[in-house]
């Protein structure tokens, strides 16, 4: 099922000036519910622009974005026209019908940013509260939740990202880079978004930090069934954590599919300025040396299994 759908989306910066630039061109794309979708592409391929469109932070120049079938960019008029045809409001008298539709419109837009949680690049720059706990609580508080609910969500979100509770009363500015990142991530997870969109969530972190961040994202998906969209240029991370991969190139979607399908075109990806995972290169070298590695290999785990299989197979002979 589609959670988010982009239809013929075009986005241009600085329309009508000499600096006009097309960041997305006629992109049609579905993001499946409950899966981890990776959007990869080199710098300037339009991937970061796309994520701003997913929660209505920005509107496409042309085209529409749908969340669960409801159009994010619909004007009040369009929404009303569509609502009048909708089965949902059928039994209401005319006036109440209009009121109910407009109320749903307002609610939909108010809740949009809570339903689609956005974690920007270097999210630690958004920290501002006196304490870590208050900062994580900022989103839930804006949702208008009760204090108990907020406290519950702060604990829950901190547990997802591995922010220990001794840090709760510390100033977020006293934390290390990796800790800040996790606090910022918790701040979005605390809103319990149905869709979590992350822009380079692991940028600038050491390998352990990277793994922690990605594992908490996967953990969040597994426990809540949320849809995840990760924007990145690192094929290595994408190969490891994503179910589906979208490849962006020159403002267009170059490839979409299950991870295996997309990574089967590893050479083409390299042509788009993306790095091939190191382990894939190693596997290719081994293959050239005559090791009978069967499938294309993109993660260390896959490599281990394939090598073990070869080893065992060799023992049999």
């Amino acid at each position, binding site marked *: 099922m589609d959670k988010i759908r982009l239809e013929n989306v075009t986005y241009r910066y*600085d329309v009508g000036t000499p600096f006009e630039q097309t960041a997305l061109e006629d992109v049609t794309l579905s993001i499946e519910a409950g899966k981890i979708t990776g959007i990869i592409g080199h710098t300037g391929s339009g991937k970061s622009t796309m994520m701003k469109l997913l929660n209505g932070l920005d509107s496409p120049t042309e085209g529409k974005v749908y969340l669960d079938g409801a159009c994010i960019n619909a004007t009040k008029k369009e929404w009303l026209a569509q609502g009048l045809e909708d089965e949902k409001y059928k039994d209401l008298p005319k006036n109440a019908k209009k009121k109910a539709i407009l109320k749903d419109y307002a609610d939909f837009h108010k809740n949009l*940013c809570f339903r689609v949680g956005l974690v*920007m690049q270097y999210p630690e720059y958004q920290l*501002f509260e006196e304490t870590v706990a208050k900062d994580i609580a900022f989103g839930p508080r804006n949702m208008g939740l009760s204090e108990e609910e907020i406290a519950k969500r702060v604990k829950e979100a901190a547990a997802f990202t591995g922010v220990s509770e001794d840090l709760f009363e510390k100033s977020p*500015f006293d934390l290390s880079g990796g800790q800040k990142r996790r606090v910022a991530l918790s*701040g979005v997870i605390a*809103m319990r978004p149905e869709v979590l969109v992350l822009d380079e969530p692991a940028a600038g972190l050491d390998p352990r930090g990277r793994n922690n961040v990605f594992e908490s994202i996967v953990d969040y998906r597994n426990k809540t069934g949320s849809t995840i969209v990760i924007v990145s240029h690192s094929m290595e991370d994408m190969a490891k954590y994503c179910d589906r991969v979208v490849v962006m190139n020159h403002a267009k979607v170059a490839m979409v599919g299950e991870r295996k399908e997309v990574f089967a075109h590893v050479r083409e990806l390299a042509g788009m300025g993306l790095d091939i995972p190191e382990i894939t290169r190693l596997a290719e070298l081994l293959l050239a040396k005559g090791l009978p590695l069967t499938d294309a290999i993109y993660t260390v785990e896959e490599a281990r299994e394939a090598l073990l299989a070869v080893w065992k197979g060799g023992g049999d002979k």
Partner: protein
Amino acid sequence: MRGMTLGQYYPGTSPIHRLDPRAKIILGILAIVCSFLCKTLFSFCLLEALVLLLVILSGIPPKLLIRALRPVLFILLFTSLVNIFMTRGKNLLFEYGIFHIYEEGLWNALFMILRITSLILMTSIFLTYTTTPIALTDGLEQLLSPLKKLHIPVHDFAMMITIAMRFIPTLAEETERIMNAQRARGVNFSTGGLIKRVRSLIPILIPLFVSAFNRAFDLANAMECRCYHGGEGRTRLKVLRYNVWDFVAILLLIGVGVGLVFANRLTFGGSIL
């Protein structure tokens, strides 16, 4: 926030663009003096002719220049009203209760409007529209360099201004990023009462200040690593050189000033005309 430009610099290669920034600062000051020298309608006519000439020479679209006048609209309105109602003269035109309007008041108001608009147009043509902010601070530093003898840290001031201007676009970009991040957490900047709106700025300002300070420390470190120690013995990538035209332009504008003084003495019939 996107598309925010630094100052109003309008790229071009007009004769005014090509003048040395130091000359342009001097020309700007002379232009101010000129607009204050005018006292009669005839001399104002000459001044406006000069303004027109500069507009044509600079090749800046008049639309842009009118935009430069927008911020002073209120001052123009206010001073002209004050002039109309407060000037006492001989020729009473209109009287109602405590309000008296004299002919001299109307003239004063007109002159004030002409003076302020031509002053702003000329200085913005010489300075903001045709000179990049960096060139302007460079020129200012050079012009003020004699003050170094009095132990006034001219170079340091110029460096501060340059750095401040350099970081305006960076901070604007950063502000936009933080605003997006906080909007994604449910902050609403556009609705609610005044207090609510001011409160919604806190999540923007704090991260912005924190990062601005961090940036400042980084920059200071980077400058120190490259042995920056102020202006002493520092050479420049772009050395400013006066051109014949710079002197010609300055002499011409001084000539205009002298001409205006004489124009003031010419009278055609009335005392002000």
